[in-house]
Protein backbone atom coordinates (compact mmCIF):
# COMPACT_ATOMS: atom_id res chain seq x y z
CA UNK A 1 0.00 0.00 0.00
CA UNK A 2 1.48 3.28 -1.04
CA UNK A 3 1.68 6.30 1.14
CA UNK A 4 -0.55 8.20 -1.18
CA UNK A 5 -3.31 5.67 -0.89
CA UNK A 6 -2.91 5.74 2.84
CA UNK A 7 -3.31 9.46 3.01
CA UNK A 8 -6.38 9.25 0.88
CA UNK A 9 -7.74 6.67 3.24
CA UNK A 10 -6.92 8.89 6.17
CA UNK A 11 -8.75 11.78 4.60
CA UNK A 12 -11.78 9.62 4.04
CA UNK A 13 -11.77 8.55 7.63
CA UNK A 14 -11.55 12.10 8.77
CA UNK A 15 -14.51 13.08 6.65
CA UNK A 16 -16.46 10.11 7.93
CA UNK A 17 -16.41 11.24 11.51
CA UNK A 18 -14.34 11.83 14.63
CA UNK A 19 -11.20 9.80 15.12
CA UNK A 20 -11.96 6.27 16.22
CA UNK A 21 -10.60 5.48 19.63
CA UNK A 22 -9.37 1.97 20.14
CA UNK A 23 -10.79 0.36 23.16
CA UNK A 24 -7.84 -1.90 23.85
CA UNK A 25 -4.60 -0.46 25.08
CA UNK A 26 -1.41 -1.54 23.31
CA UNK A 27 0.28 -3.18 26.27
CA UNK A 28 1.62 -6.14 24.31
CA UNK A 29 2.94 -4.13 21.41
CA UNK A 30 4.49 -1.67 23.85
CA UNK A 31 6.28 -4.51 25.58
CA UNK A 32 7.79 -5.58 22.27
CA UNK A 33 8.83 -2.10 21.19
CA UNK A 34 10.16 -1.23 24.60
CA UNK A 35 11.88 -4.57 25.16
CA UNK A 36 15.45 -3.35 24.58
CA UNK A 37 14.86 -0.27 26.67
CA UNK A 38 13.27 -2.28 29.46
CA UNK A 39 16.17 -4.71 29.56
CA UNK A 40 18.56 -1.78 29.60
CA UNK A 41 16.68 -0.13 32.42
CA UNK A 42 16.50 -3.31 34.46
CA UNK A 43 20.12 -4.34 33.97
CA UNK A 44 22.04 -1.10 33.54
CA UNK A 45 19.98 1.79 34.83
CA UNK A 46 17.81 0.94 37.80
CA UNK A 47 20.59 -0.74 39.74
CA UNK A 48 23.17 2.05 39.48
CA UNK A 49 20.49 4.72 39.98
CA UNK A 50 19.24 3.03 43.12
CA UNK A 51 22.80 2.39 44.27
CA UNK A 52 23.64 6.07 43.93
CA UNK A 53 20.52 6.95 45.89
CA UNK A 54 21.54 4.58 48.66
CA UNK A 55 25.11 5.91 48.60
CA UNK A 56 23.78 9.41 49.18
CA UNK A 57 23.10 8.32 52.75
CA UNK A 58 26.59 6.94 53.27
CA UNK A 59 30.20 7.91 53.54
CA UNK A 60 31.70 6.12 50.55
CA UNK A 61 35.32 6.68 49.57
CA UNK A 62 35.35 4.19 46.67
CA UNK A 63 38.07 2.09 48.27
CA UNK A 64 36.20 0.86 51.33
CA UNK A 65 32.62 -0.33 51.84
CA UNK A 66 30.14 2.53 52.27
CA UNK A 67 29.31 3.51 55.85
CA UNK A 68 25.77 4.57 56.60
CA UNK A 69 25.71 8.15 57.87
CA UNK A 70 22.03 8.99 57.74
CA UNK A 71 21.30 12.51 56.61
CA UNK A 72 24.82 13.83 57.18
CA UNK A 73 25.45 14.40 53.48
CA UNK A 74 22.21 16.29 53.11
CA UNK A 75 22.97 18.38 56.15
CA UNK A 76 26.25 19.32 54.52
CA UNK A 77 24.40 20.44 51.40
CA UNK A 78 22.93 23.25 53.45
CA UNK A 79 26.21 24.60 54.77
CA UNK A 80 28.48 23.96 51.81
CA UNK A 81 29.45 27.39 50.48
CA UNK A 82 31.23 26.04 47.42
CA UNK A 83 28.06 24.19 46.51
CA UNK A 84 25.98 27.34 46.84
CA UNK A 85 28.49 29.17 44.72
CA UNK A 86 28.41 26.44 42.07
CA UNK A 87 24.61 26.68 41.97
CA UNK A 88 24.93 30.39 41.31
CA UNK A 89 27.39 29.76 38.48
CA UNK A 90 25.22 27.03 36.98
CA UNK A 91 21.99 29.05 37.15
CA UNK A 92 23.69 31.98 35.44
CA UNK A 93 24.89 29.65 32.75
CA UNK A 94 21.44 28.13 32.24
CA UNK A 95 19.58 31.42 32.26
CA UNK A 96 21.90 33.17 29.81
CA UNK A 97 23.41 30.33 27.83
CA UNK A 98 20.37 28.27 26.93
CA UNK A 99 18.18 31.02 25.43
CA UNK A 100 21.14 32.60 23.61
CA UNK A 101 22.26 29.35 22.01
CA UNK A 102 18.70 28.43 21.05
CA UNK A 103 17.98 31.85 19.58
CA UNK A 104 21.12 31.76 17.45
CA UNK A 105 20.42 28.17 16.37
CA UNK A 106 16.79 28.89 15.47
CA UNK A 107 17.58 32.08 13.61
CA UNK A 108 20.26 30.46 11.50
CA UNK A 109 18.15 27.36 10.91
CA UNK A 110 15.32 29.55 9.64
CA UNK A 111 17.65 31.50 7.39
CA UNK A 112 19.19 28.30 6.08
CA UNK A 113 15.81 26.69 5.56
CA UNK A 114 14.91 29.31 3.02
CA UNK A 115 16.80 28.12 0.01
CA UNK A 116 19.99 29.93 -0.70
CA UNK A 117 23.08 29.24 -2.70
CA UNK A 118 25.86 27.46 -0.93
CA UNK A 119 23.71 26.52 1.99
CA UNK A 120 25.04 22.97 2.18
CA UNK A 121 28.42 24.52 2.76
CA UNK A 122 27.18 27.01 5.34
CA UNK A 123 25.38 24.24 7.12
CA UNK A 124 28.54 22.15 7.32
CA UNK A 125 30.65 25.07 8.44
CA UNK A 126 28.21 26.03 11.17
CA UNK A 127 28.34 22.54 12.47
CA UNK A 128 32.12 22.38 12.73
CA UNK A 129 32.40 23.85 16.24
CA UNK A 130 30.17 21.09 17.57
CA UNK A 131 32.51 18.50 16.05
CA UNK A 132 35.48 19.74 18.02
CA UNK A 133 33.55 19.27 21.23
CA UNK A 134 35.79 18.63 24.16
CA UNK A 135 39.07 18.75 22.30
CA UNK A 136 42.07 19.85 24.33
CA UNK A 137 42.87 22.09 21.37
CA UNK A 138 39.83 24.20 22.26
CA UNK A 139 41.18 24.86 25.73
CA UNK A 140 44.44 26.09 24.27
CA UNK A 141 42.66 28.17 21.69
CA UNK A 142 40.20 29.78 24.10
CA UNK A 143 43.14 31.09 26.05
CA UNK A 144 44.68 32.51 22.90
CA UNK A 145 41.44 34.21 21.95
CA UNK A 146 40.25 35.53 25.30
CA UNK A 147 43.59 36.03 27.04
CA UNK A 148 45.07 39.44 27.79
CA UNK A 149 47.07 39.42 24.57
CA UNK A 150 44.32 37.53 22.81
CA UNK A 151 42.61 37.88 19.51
CA UNK A 152 39.44 39.24 21.08
CA UNK A 153 41.34 42.20 22.52
CA UNK A 154 43.03 42.79 19.17
CA UNK A 155 39.57 42.89 17.63
CA UNK A 156 38.40 45.35 20.29
CA UNK A 157 41.50 47.40 19.49
CA UNK A 158 40.36 47.63 15.86
CA UNK A 159 37.09 49.19 16.89
CA UNK A 160 38.82 51.59 19.20
CA UNK A 161 38.61 49.84 22.56
CA UNK A 162 42.07 49.39 23.91
CA UNK A 163 42.28 46.84 26.70
CA UNK A 164 44.65 44.28 28.17
CA UNK A 165 41.90 42.59 30.14
CA UNK A 166 42.18 38.83 30.29
CA UNK A 167 38.60 37.77 29.82
CA UNK A 168 39.31 34.16 30.58
CA UNK A 169 41.28 34.81 33.77
CA UNK A 170 39.13 37.47 35.36
CA UNK A 171 36.64 35.88 37.77
CA UNK A 172 33.93 38.29 36.65
CA UNK A 173 34.18 37.45 32.94
CA UNK A 174 35.50 33.87 32.86
CA UNK A 175 31.99 32.42 32.98
CA UNK A 176 31.03 34.65 30.07
CA UNK A 177 33.72 33.09 27.88
CA UNK A 178 32.36 29.63 28.65
CA UNK A 179 28.83 30.77 27.81
CA UNK A 180 30.25 32.03 24.52
CA UNK A 181 31.87 28.65 23.98
CA UNK A 182 28.44 27.10 24.52
CA UNK A 183 26.71 29.48 22.11
CA UNK A 184 29.49 28.84 19.62
CA UNK A 185 28.50 25.16 19.49
CA UNK A 186 24.96 26.07 18.41
CA UNK A 187 25.31 23.62 15.51
CA UNK A 188 23.65 20.65 17.25
CA UNK A 189 20.46 22.55 18.05
CA UNK A 190 20.52 24.11 14.61
CA UNK A 191 20.65 20.70 12.96
CA UNK A 192 17.67 19.53 15.00
CA UNK A 193 15.74 22.68 14.09
CA UNK A 194 16.57 22.16 10.45
CA UNK A 195 15.37 18.59 10.56
CA UNK A 196 12.17 19.79 12.21
CA UNK A 197 11.64 22.49 9.60
CA UNK A 198 11.99 19.90 6.88
CA UNK A 199 9.17 17.91 8.40
CA UNK A 200 6.65 20.67 7.85
CA UNK A 201 4.55 19.61 4.85
CA UNK A 202 5.23 21.89 1.95
CA UNK A 203 1.62 21.99 0.81
CA UNK A 204 0.77 24.05 3.89
CA UNK A 205 2.91 26.85 2.52
CA UNK A 206 1.49 26.42 -0.94
CA UNK A 207 -2.01 26.73 0.40
CA UNK A 208 -1.06 29.75 2.46
CA UNK A 209 0.68 31.39 -0.50
CA UNK A 210 -2.39 30.84 -2.63
CA UNK A 211 -4.41 32.59 0.05
CA UNK A 212 -1.96 35.47 -0.21
CA UNK A 213 -0.38 35.12 3.25
CA UNK A 214 2.75 37.18 3.81
CA UNK A 215 6.05 35.53 4.67
CA UNK A 216 5.71 36.73 8.24
CA UNK A 217 2.18 35.42 8.44
CA UNK A 218 3.33 32.05 7.07
CA UNK A 219 6.02 31.95 9.70
CA UNK A 220 3.59 32.84 12.47
CA UNK A 221 0.81 30.48 11.53
CA UNK A 222 2.63 27.54 9.95
CA UNK A 223 6.35 27.37 10.72
CA UNK A 224 6.28 28.37 14.34
CA UNK A 225 3.35 26.22 15.53
CA UNK A 226 4.52 23.16 13.63
CA UNK A 227 8.04 23.60 14.94
CA UNK A 228 6.96 23.84 18.59
CA UNK A 229 7.56 20.14 19.38
CA UNK A 230 11.15 20.59 18.26
CA UNK A 231 11.58 23.93 20.01
CA UNK A 232 10.24 22.24 23.10
CA UNK A 233 12.68 19.37 22.70
CA UNK A 234 15.63 21.71 22.29
CA UNK A 235 14.52 23.76 25.28
CA UNK A 236 14.05 20.77 27.58
CA UNK A 237 17.30 19.15 26.54
CA UNK A 238 19.11 22.48 26.49
CA UNK A 239 18.16 23.08 30.11
CA UNK A 240 18.99 19.53 31.18
CA UNK A 241 22.34 19.67 29.40
CA UNK A 242 23.17 23.12 30.72
CA UNK A 243 22.55 22.03 34.28
CA UNK A 244 24.78 19.03 33.66
CA UNK A 245 27.41 21.03 31.76
CA UNK A 246 30.80 19.60 32.51
CA UNK A 247 33.15 19.12 29.61
CA UNK A 248 33.61 22.71 28.50
CA UNK A 249 34.37 24.03 31.95
CA UNK A 250 36.54 21.02 32.67
CA UNK A 251 38.61 21.48 29.55
CA UNK A 252 38.96 25.25 29.77
CA UNK A 253 39.86 25.37 33.47
CA UNK A 254 41.66 22.01 33.48
CA UNK A 255 39.17 20.66 35.98
CA UNK A 256 39.66 23.37 38.59
CA UNK A 257 36.61 25.54 37.92
CA UNK A 258 38.94 28.52 38.30
CA UNK A 259 39.86 31.30 38.44
CA UNK A 260 38.59 31.60 42.00
CA UNK A 261 35.79 29.10 41.37
CA UNK A 262 34.18 31.44 38.86
CA UNK A 263 33.54 28.56 36.45
CA UNK A 264 32.75 25.96 39.08
CA UNK A 265 29.80 24.27 37.42
CA UNK A 266 27.62 22.02 39.50
CA UNK A 267 28.76 18.76 37.95
CA UNK A 268 32.37 19.92 37.99
CA UNK A 269 32.08 20.37 41.75
CA UNK A 270 30.35 17.01 42.01
CA UNK A 271 33.20 15.44 40.07
CA UNK A 272 35.81 17.11 42.29
CA UNK A 273 34.06 15.76 45.36
CA UNK A 274 33.52 12.26 43.97
CA UNK A 275 36.71 11.59 42.07
CA UNK A 276 39.03 14.32 43.34
CA UNK A 277 38.40 13.94 47.05
CA UNK A 278 36.91 10.43 46.97
CA UNK A 279 33.72 11.53 48.72
CA UNK A 280 31.37 9.55 46.51
CA UNK A 281 28.64 9.46 49.14
CA UNK A 282 28.45 13.23 49.18
CA UNK A 283 28.77 13.33 45.38
CA UNK A 284 25.73 11.04 45.20
CA UNK A 285 23.77 13.38 47.43
CA UNK A 286 24.82 16.22 45.13
CA UNK A 287 23.67 14.19 42.14
CA UNK A 288 20.23 13.66 43.59
CA UNK A 289 19.87 17.31 44.50
CA UNK A 290 20.68 18.03 40.86
CA UNK A 291 18.07 15.51 39.76
CA UNK A 292 15.50 17.28 41.91
CA UNK A 293 16.44 20.67 40.45
CA UNK A 294 16.50 19.53 36.83
CA UNK A 295 13.41 17.42 37.42
CA UNK A 296 11.53 20.44 38.71
CA UNK A 297 12.54 22.55 35.71
CA UNK A 298 11.62 19.74 33.32
CA UNK A 299 8.27 19.19 35.00
CA UNK A 300 7.48 22.89 34.73
CA UNK A 301 8.51 22.75 31.10
CA UNK A 302 6.21 19.83 30.39
CA UNK A 303 3.37 21.47 32.23
CA UNK A 304 3.85 24.72 30.35
CA UNK A 305 4.16 22.88 27.04
CA UNK A 306 0.41 22.27 27.02
CA UNK A 307 -0.11 25.92 26.41
CA UNK A 308 2.23 26.42 23.52
CA UNK A 309 3.38 23.14 21.98
CA UNK A 310 1.34 21.94 19.07
CA UNK A 311 1.30 18.22 18.29
CA UNK A 312 -0.15 16.67 15.20
CA UNK A 313 -1.65 13.77 17.08
Amino acid at each position, binding site marked *: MSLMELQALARDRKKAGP*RAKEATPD*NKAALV*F*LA*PWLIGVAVLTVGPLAASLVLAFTNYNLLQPPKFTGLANFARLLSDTRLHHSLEVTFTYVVIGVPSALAVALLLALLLDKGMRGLAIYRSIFYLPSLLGSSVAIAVLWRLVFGGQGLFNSFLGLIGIDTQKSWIANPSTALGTIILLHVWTFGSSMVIFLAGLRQIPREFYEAAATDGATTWRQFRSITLPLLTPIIFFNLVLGIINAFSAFTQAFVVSNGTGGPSDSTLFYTLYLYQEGFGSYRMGYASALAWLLVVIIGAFTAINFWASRFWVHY*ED
Partner: protein
Amino acid sequence: MKTETIIAEAGAGVTSGVTPTWTDLDPPPRRRPAWTRWAAALAKHLLMIAVSVVALYPVLWMVASSFRPDSEIFGTASIFPDSFNLDNYTAGWNALTKPFSTYLINSAIVVGGAIIGNLLTCSMAAYAFARLRFRLRGPAFALMLLTLMIPIHVVIVPQYIIWAKLGLVNTFVPVIAPKFLASDAFFIFLMVQFIRGLPRDLDEAARIDGAGHGTIFFRILLPLMTPALATTAIFTFIWTWNDFFSQLIYLTKPDLYTVPVALRSFIDATSKSSYGGMFAMSVVSVLPLVLAFAVGQKYLVRGIATTGLK
Protein backbone atom coordinates in the same frame (compact mmCIF):
# COMPACT_ATOMS: atom_id res chain seq x y z
CA MET B 1 20.48 35.84 -8.85
CA LYS B 2 23.88 36.66 -10.19
CA THR B 3 25.02 38.58 -7.13
CA GLU B 4 23.89 35.76 -4.95
CA THR B 5 26.02 33.24 -6.78
CA ILE B 6 29.06 35.44 -6.67
CA ILE B 7 28.73 36.07 -2.98
CA ALA B 8 28.11 32.45 -2.23
CA GLU B 9 31.20 31.46 -4.09
CA ALA B 10 33.30 34.16 -2.53
CA GLY B 11 32.09 33.28 0.93
CA ALA B 12 32.47 29.58 0.76
CA GLY B 13 35.42 29.42 -1.55
CA VAL B 14 33.93 26.34 -3.17
CA THR B 15 31.29 26.26 -5.83
CA SER B 16 29.57 22.97 -5.31
CA GLY B 17 26.90 23.81 -2.75
CA VAL B 18 24.04 24.00 -5.19
CA THR B 19 21.36 21.60 -4.15
CA PRO B 20 18.70 21.58 -6.80
CA THR B 21 16.24 19.63 -4.69
CA TRP B 22 16.44 22.27 -2.08
CA THR B 23 15.42 25.24 -4.17
CA ASP B 24 12.66 23.19 -5.66
CA LEU B 25 11.28 22.54 -2.25
CA ASP B 26 11.04 26.03 -1.03
CA PRO B 27 7.84 27.88 -0.64
CA PRO B 28 7.42 30.05 -3.67
CA PRO B 29 8.80 33.49 -2.85
CA ARG B 30 6.47 36.41 -3.12
CA ARG B 31 7.31 38.83 -5.86
CA ARG B 32 9.10 41.86 -4.61
CA PRO B 33 11.11 44.52 -6.41
CA ALA B 34 14.37 43.05 -7.66
CA TRP B 35 16.63 45.40 -5.70
CA THR B 36 14.97 44.52 -2.41
CA ARG B 37 15.59 40.88 -3.03
CA TRP B 38 19.21 41.54 -3.92
CA ALA B 39 19.74 43.61 -0.84
CA ALA B 40 18.12 40.99 1.33
CA ALA B 41 20.19 38.23 -0.22
CA LEU B 42 23.32 40.29 0.19
CA ALA B 43 22.61 40.98 3.85
CA LYS B 44 21.86 37.34 4.44
CA HIS B 45 25.07 36.17 2.83
CA LEU B 46 27.10 38.73 4.71
CA LEU B 47 25.64 37.40 7.95
CA MET B 48 26.31 33.82 6.90
CA ILE B 49 29.88 34.65 5.99
CA ALA B 50 30.43 36.38 9.32
CA VAL B 51 29.11 33.37 11.22
CA SER B 52 31.20 31.07 9.03
CA VAL B 53 34.35 32.95 9.92
CA VAL B 54 33.64 32.62 13.63
CA ALA B 55 32.82 28.93 13.25
CA LEU B 56 35.73 28.11 10.96
CA TYR B 57 38.47 30.03 12.66
CA PRO B 58 39.27 27.56 15.46
CA VAL B 59 39.29 24.68 13.02
CA LEU B 60 41.70 26.45 10.74
CA TRP B 61 43.82 27.37 13.73
CA MET B 62 43.97 23.74 14.78
CA VAL B 63 44.98 22.66 11.29
CA ALA B 64 47.61 25.39 11.10
CA SER B 65 48.93 24.42 14.52
CA SER B 66 49.31 20.83 13.44
CA PHE B 67 51.99 22.00 11.01
CA ARG B 68 53.86 24.09 13.57
CA PRO B 69 56.68 22.99 15.83
CA ASP B 70 55.64 22.61 19.49
CA SER B 71 57.34 25.80 20.54
CA GLU B 72 55.26 27.94 18.18
CA ILE B 73 51.81 26.51 18.89
CA PHE B 74 51.02 28.46 22.01
CA GLY B 75 52.37 31.80 20.95
CA THR B 76 50.15 32.54 18.00
CA ALA B 77 46.47 32.71 17.27
CA SER B 78 47.18 33.08 13.56
CA ILE B 79 45.52 30.65 11.19
CA PHE B 80 48.11 30.99 8.47
CA PRO B 81 50.76 28.31 8.76
CA ASP B 82 54.21 29.75 8.34
CA SER B 83 55.62 26.35 7.56
CA PHE B 84 54.24 23.18 6.10
CA ASN B 85 55.93 20.57 8.15
CA LEU B 86 54.46 17.09 8.26
CA ASP B 87 56.73 15.98 11.12
CA ASN B 88 53.91 16.26 13.65
CA TYR B 89 51.85 13.85 11.61
CA THR B 90 54.50 11.18 11.29
CA ALA B 91 55.57 11.63 14.91
CA GLY B 92 52.01 11.72 16.23
CA TRP B 93 50.97 8.67 14.26
CA ASN B 94 53.59 6.56 16.02
CA ALA B 95 53.94 8.45 19.29
CA LEU B 96 52.01 5.99 21.43
CA THR B 97 52.76 2.29 21.78
CA LYS B 98 50.51 1.40 18.83
CA PRO B 99 50.17 3.17 15.48
CA PHE B 100 47.30 5.64 15.49
CA SER B 101 45.36 3.50 13.01
CA THR B 102 44.68 1.06 15.86
CA TYR B 103 42.76 3.73 17.74
CA LEU B 104 40.91 4.88 14.64
CA ILE B 105 39.78 1.32 13.94
CA ASN B 106 38.71 0.80 17.56
CA SER B 107 36.74 4.03 17.51
CA ALA B 108 35.16 3.00 14.23
CA ILE B 109 34.01 -0.29 15.74
CA VAL B 110 32.55 1.43 18.78
CA VAL B 111 30.89 4.14 16.70
CA GLY B 112 29.50 1.68 14.16
CA GLY B 113 27.95 -0.45 16.88
CA ALA B 114 26.58 2.60 18.66
CA ILE B 115 24.90 3.99 15.54
CA ILE B 116 23.18 0.71 14.67
CA GLY B 117 22.10 0.22 18.26
CA ASN B 118 20.73 3.72 18.70
CA LEU B 119 18.90 3.81 15.37
CA LEU B 120 17.19 0.51 16.04
CA THR B 121 16.32 0.55 19.70
CA CYS B 122 15.77 4.26 20.32
CA SER B 123 13.34 4.50 17.43
CA MET B 124 11.45 1.46 18.68
CA ALA B 125 11.16 2.89 22.16
CA ALA B 126 10.18 6.25 20.68
CA TYR B 127 7.36 4.65 18.71
CA ALA B 128 6.02 3.06 21.87
CA PHE B 129 6.16 6.33 23.82
CA ALA B 130 4.73 8.44 21.01
CA ARG B 131 2.01 6.23 19.60
CA LEU B 132 1.10 3.37 21.93
CA ARG B 133 -1.10 3.45 24.96
CA PHE B 134 0.14 1.22 27.72
CA ARG B 135 0.18 1.01 31.46
CA LEU B 136 2.81 2.99 33.32
CA ARG B 137 3.59 5.05 30.25
CA GLY B 138 3.90 8.23 32.26
CA PRO B 139 6.24 6.80 34.91
CA ALA B 140 8.27 5.00 32.26
CA PHE B 141 8.71 8.23 30.32
CA ALA B 142 9.72 10.03 33.50
CA LEU B 143 12.24 7.32 34.29
CA MET B 144 13.68 7.69 30.82
CA LEU B 145 14.10 11.43 31.33
CA LEU B 146 15.59 10.79 34.75
CA THR B 147 18.48 8.92 33.16
CA LEU B 148 19.35 12.14 31.35
CA MET B 149 19.56 14.07 34.59
CA ILE B 150 21.79 11.91 36.73
CA PRO B 151 25.48 12.75 36.30
CA ILE B 152 27.52 9.87 34.92
CA HIS B 153 30.12 10.28 37.65
CA VAL B 154 27.90 8.81 40.35
CA VAL B 155 26.62 5.85 38.34
CA ILE B 156 29.85 4.87 36.60
CA VAL B 157 31.17 2.93 39.59
CA PRO B 158 28.05 0.75 40.06
CA GLN B 159 27.93 0.25 36.30
CA TYR B 160 31.59 -0.67 36.23
CA ILE B 161 30.93 -3.27 38.92
CA ILE B 162 28.19 -4.86 36.78
CA TRP B 163 30.48 -5.13 33.76
CA ALA B 164 33.40 -6.31 35.87
CA LYS B 165 31.22 -9.04 37.39
CA LEU B 166 30.21 -10.11 33.91
CA GLY B 167 33.89 -10.23 32.97
CA LEU B 168 33.36 -7.79 30.12
CA VAL B 169 35.73 -5.01 31.08
CA ASN B 170 38.33 -4.58 28.34
CA THR B 171 35.91 -5.60 25.63
CA PHE B 172 33.82 -3.26 23.50
CA VAL B 173 30.64 -4.63 25.08
CA PRO B 174 30.30 -2.07 27.92
CA VAL B 175 30.54 0.83 25.46
CA ILE B 176 28.35 -0.66 22.70
CA ALA B 177 25.78 -2.84 24.46
CA PRO B 178 24.01 0.09 26.22
CA LYS B 179 23.25 1.56 22.80
CA PHE B 180 21.46 -1.66 21.87
CA LEU B 181 19.47 -1.29 25.06
CA ALA B 182 18.22 2.19 24.15
CA SER B 183 20.18 3.84 26.93
CA ASP B 184 20.52 7.16 25.08
CA ALA B 185 17.33 8.80 26.28
CA PHE B 186 18.21 11.93 24.32
CA PHE B 187 17.46 10.16 21.04
CA ILE B 188 14.31 8.46 22.31
CA PHE B 189 12.95 11.83 23.33
CA LEU B 190 14.08 13.39 20.04
CA MET B 191 12.27 10.76 18.01
CA VAL B 192 9.20 10.92 20.21
CA GLN B 193 8.96 14.61 19.35
CA PHE B 194 9.39 13.91 15.65
CA ILE B 195 6.82 11.12 15.60
CA ARG B 196 4.34 13.31 17.44
CA GLY B 197 4.86 15.87 14.73
CA LEU B 198 3.68 13.38 12.08
CA PRO B 199 -0.03 13.30 11.33
CA ARG B 200 -1.67 10.46 13.18
CA ASP B 201 -4.14 9.96 10.36
CA LEU B 202 -1.44 8.08 8.56
CA ASP B 203 -1.04 5.23 10.97
CA GLU B 204 -4.70 5.16 11.79
CA ALA B 205 -5.54 4.71 8.17
CA ALA B 206 -3.03 1.89 7.96
CA ARG B 207 -4.38 0.31 11.07
CA ILE B 208 -7.89 0.30 9.71
CA ASP B 209 -6.47 -1.32 6.66
CA GLY B 210 -5.25 -4.13 8.88
CA ALA B 211 -1.63 -3.15 9.36
CA GLY B 212 0.01 -4.20 12.62
CA HIS B 213 2.33 -2.04 14.70
CA GLY B 214 5.34 -3.57 13.02
CA THR B 215 4.12 -2.51 9.61
CA ILE B 216 3.10 0.93 10.76
CA PHE B 217 6.44 1.49 12.38
CA PHE B 218 8.73 0.06 9.74
CA ARG B 219 6.79 0.83 6.57
CA ILE B 220 5.14 4.11 7.36
CA LEU B 221 6.79 6.03 10.18
CA LEU B 222 10.44 5.12 9.76
CA PRO B 223 10.64 6.35 6.16
CA LEU B 224 9.08 9.63 7.25
CA MET B 225 11.53 10.01 10.09
CA THR B 226 14.62 10.26 7.93
CA PRO B 227 15.67 13.64 9.36
CA ALA B 228 15.36 12.38 12.91
CA LEU B 229 17.19 9.17 12.08
CA ALA B 230 19.93 11.08 10.29
CA THR B 231 20.23 13.42 13.25
CA THR B 232 20.50 10.42 15.56
CA ALA B 233 23.12 8.75 13.40
CA ILE B 234 25.24 11.88 13.07
CA PHE B 235 25.00 12.84 16.73
CA THR B 236 25.74 9.29 17.83
CA PHE B 237 28.75 9.30 15.57
CA ILE B 238 30.07 12.56 16.95
CA TRP B 239 29.29 12.02 20.60
CA THR B 240 30.58 8.48 20.68
CA TRP B 241 33.67 9.47 18.73
CA ASN B 242 34.37 12.19 21.31
CA ASP B 243 33.20 10.32 24.39
CA PHE B 244 36.15 10.09 26.72
CA PHE B 245 35.04 9.04 30.16
CA SER B 246 33.34 5.67 29.66
CA GLN B 247 35.89 4.58 27.09
CA LEU B 248 38.70 5.52 29.48
CA ILE B 249 37.14 3.48 32.26
CA TYR B 250 36.16 0.36 30.32
CA LEU B 251 38.98 0.07 27.81
CA THR B 252 42.24 -0.05 29.69
CA LYS B 253 44.37 -2.15 27.35
CA PRO B 254 46.29 0.05 24.91
CA ASP B 255 45.26 -2.33 22.08
CA LEU B 256 41.66 -1.33 22.77
CA TYR B 257 42.19 2.42 23.20
CA THR B 258 39.91 4.62 21.18
CA VAL B 259 40.76 7.98 19.65
CA PRO B 260 39.78 10.25 22.58
CA VAL B 261 41.61 8.07 25.10
CA ALA B 262 44.68 7.99 22.88
CA LEU B 263 44.60 11.75 22.33
CA ARG B 264 44.59 12.45 26.06
CA SER B 265 47.52 10.11 26.50
CA PHE B 266 49.71 12.46 24.51
CA ILE B 267 49.63 15.15 27.11
CA ASP B 268 51.15 15.30 30.53
CA ALA B 269 50.79 18.65 32.20
CA THR B 270 53.94 18.21 34.26
CA SER B 271 56.39 17.33 31.55
CA LYS B 272 57.26 18.22 28.02
CA SER B 273 54.50 16.85 25.83
CA SER B 274 53.99 16.36 22.11
CA TYR B 275 51.39 19.02 21.54
CA GLY B 276 52.25 19.11 17.86
CA GLY B 277 51.60 15.39 17.58
CA MET B 278 48.40 15.77 19.55
CA PHE B 279 47.16 18.53 17.26
CA ALA B 280 48.09 16.55 14.16
CA MET B 281 46.23 13.50 15.41
CA SER B 282 43.30 15.70 16.47
CA VAL B 283 43.04 16.86 12.88
CA VAL B 284 43.23 13.26 11.71
CA SER B 285 40.51 12.26 14.13
CA VAL B 286 38.21 15.14 13.21
CA LEU B 287 38.35 14.19 9.52
CA PRO B 288 35.97 11.22 9.84
CA LEU B 289 33.53 13.49 11.67
CA VAL B 290 33.64 16.10 8.94
CA LEU B 291 33.18 13.41 6.30
CA ALA B 292 30.32 11.83 8.23
CA PHE B 293 28.60 15.15 8.49
CA ALA B 294 29.20 16.09 4.88
CA VAL B 295 27.72 12.79 3.74
CA GLY B 296 24.96 12.62 6.31
CA GLN B 297 23.67 16.15 6.17
CA LYS B 298 21.64 15.72 3.04
CA TYR B 299 19.52 13.14 4.82
CA LEU B 300 18.87 15.63 7.56
CA VAL B 301 16.61 17.55 5.25
CA ARG B 302 14.82 14.65 3.55
CA GLY B 303 11.64 14.78 5.50
CA ILE B 304 8.03 14.47 4.79
CA ALA B 305 8.44 17.24 2.27
CA THR B 306 10.55 15.10 -0.02
CA THR B 307 8.60 11.87 0.10
CA GLY B 308 6.09 12.93 -2.46
CA LEU B 309 3.33 12.94 0.08
CA LYS B 310 0.55 15.14 -1.12
